[in-house]
């Protein structure tokens, strides 16, 4: 993908930058339902999306919205939806169908604190739901985790590109802070993502060709297992798309693993720690699925300890522990329900780990 950028630097909210990027990524349709803290996406598109370019439709529920996405994606069009955590829970059935039918689409979760109605403040507690499938059956989403307003815009293009390449929904897992905060952003230009109606689309049977059926069921378990194998083979291929960002990992004694907003806060804590004589590296997974397992494993052989920081009770830390597989101790620091840690708080955790490791050594 050849990304071209606008020369103008704009000051925008994360949600608005994402919505503007969706217009520039030439979506044919957006179907959504209002929910804080992401309603600006629907609002921005309702105001700024040109009717001739496609449709913006406020559905009666997230359930209806995701099924509209399913139908429109099944007809081969470039479509998306966005929601926040409780809405995502409602969409999971439809997402399972879209994934089973191997349709591309863009999903956005500007997540908030839960469980239940929760709060409208940021959270990363939808990590399990996003990266393990979420709905019923063996499926995965391609998951991208932005940590800036710039990435809220950029990842619209990356997610659609990957979704169409692999015929699988791609999810941008953001949070309430990234959606609401304003930062400078350079928007990608139109035309970066070529578009065509795929051969498999249900859009009217072409004469002398087999009809296209978008389906997710099979009565015969052998057939259903083969459909599953197709999906799993695709996920094996998808591993090559893993993306992450490393910072100061040379000679690092402690490695922080954090994504999205947490990584942003951790980089400040990392700076404080390194100014105070600690040696701290940072790995930020950009794709949460596929997960940067190999890189984390390799780094685990070099560092003395790993600290995972999340806005949750500890979800990604389970994946980190799994790949580290006992190579080094893995510590966790998390805040829940919309609370966000300060860099001082994380710096304090880093010092505690350094003291513990020093005692051990």
């Amino acid at each position: 993908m050849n990304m071209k950028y606008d020369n103008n630097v704009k000051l925008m909210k994360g949600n608005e930058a994402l919505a503007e990027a969706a217009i520039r990524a030439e979506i044919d349709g957006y179907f959504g339902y209002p929910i804080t803290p992401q309603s600006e996406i629907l609002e921005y598109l309702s105001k700024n999306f040109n009717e001739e370019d496609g449709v913006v439709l406020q559905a009666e529920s997230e359930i209806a919205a995701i099924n509209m996405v399913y139908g429109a994606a099944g007809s081969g069009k470039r479509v998306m939806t966005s929601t926040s955590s409780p809405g995502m829970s409602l969409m999971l059935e439809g997402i399972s169908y879209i994934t089973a039918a191997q349709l591309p689409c863009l999903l956005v979760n500007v997540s908030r604190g839960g469980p239940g109605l929760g709060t409208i403040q940021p959270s990363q507690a939808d990590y399990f739901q996003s990266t393990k499938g979420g709905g019923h059956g063996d499926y995965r989403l391609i998951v991208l985790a932005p940590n800036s307003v710039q990435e809220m815009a950029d990842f619209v293009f990356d997610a659609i590109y990957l979704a169409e390449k692999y015929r699988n929904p791609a999810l941008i897992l953001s949070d309430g802070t990234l959606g609401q905060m304003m930062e400078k952003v350079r928007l990608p230009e139109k035309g970066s993502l070529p578009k065509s109606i795929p051969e498999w689309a249900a859009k009217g049977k072409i004469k002398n060709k087999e009809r296209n059926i978008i389906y997710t069921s099979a009565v015969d378990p052998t057939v259903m297992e083969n459909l599953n194998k197709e999906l799993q083979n695709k996920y094996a291929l998808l591993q090559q798309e893993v993306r992450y960002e490393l910072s100061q990992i040379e000679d690092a004694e402690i490695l922080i693993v954090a994504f999205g907003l947490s990584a942003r806060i951790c980089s400040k804590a990392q700076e404080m720690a390194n100014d105070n004589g600690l040696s701290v590296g940072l790995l930020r997974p950009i794709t949460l699925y596929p997960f940067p397992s190999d890189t984390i494993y390799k780094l685990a052989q070099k560092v003395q300890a790993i600290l995972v920081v999340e806005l949750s009770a500890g979800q990604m830390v389970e994946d980190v522990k799994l790949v580290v597989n006992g190579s080094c101790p893995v510590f966790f620091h998390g805040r829940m329900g919309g609370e966000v840690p300060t860099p001082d708080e994380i710096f304090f955790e880093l010092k505690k780990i350094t003291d513990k490791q020093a005692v051990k050594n």
Partner: protein
Amino acid sequence: MINKCEIEDLELVYEKPKTLTDTPMHYCPGCGHGVINKLIMEVIDELKIQDKTVGVAPVGCAVFEYRYMDIDMIEAPHGRASAVATGVKRVNPDKYVFSYQGDGDLAAIGTSETIHTVNRGENILMLFINNAIYGMTGGQMAPTTLIGQKTSTSPFGRSVKNNGFPLNITELISKLDGAFYVTRHSVHKPNSVRKLKKAIQKSFEYQKENKGTCFIEVISNCPAGWGMTPLKSNEWLEENLIPKYPLGDIKVPTKN
């Protein structure tokens, strides 16, 4: 084995629609679905819109109707066919789109989608097959099951106290401004089959003119689920279902 028949002198009076595949239908003997499937394809043949039509199949007995209909189709989740059809139509306004759902699908789990699709006046045809029972899952009570009607989940008969009243959803949605043409038919008699075909034809023609939602309810039978012979089921349908769900137009376009 006869490989070739001498048919030159014979006049062709009937053939199956070209857009109906040769796949044997899975429907139970005597079930109305097969007739309704065939009628839709007959109309698509006659209007020559095979290349411009996308159908949306439900979860229920008609889930595999895409095996019989030689058109592009999408299999929707349970209850969501009208939302899926909305998605297809909104990004393909030049295509003919229809959804096909049973009573549990359209009037229970999909009630919200049904009401809002019609209320928006989505320019699609919604086909609603009402046989007052969940056929595919083995004969459970439907929202349209009659008072006193025995099903596997109302083994002593549906009671108002426990289950409330049968839902006339077609009358309900006919009050919505987005509904353009609302009509109720059956397939238990030759003349009712002919009337249904006309209604399907009209609906596709209205769709071409962007008139709004066309909604056709078809009162059908379920010999297996009702525990009756096909013939008996059609008698029971006429004596019990039609009085509760009377046939005929419920909302017709006003002439300007």
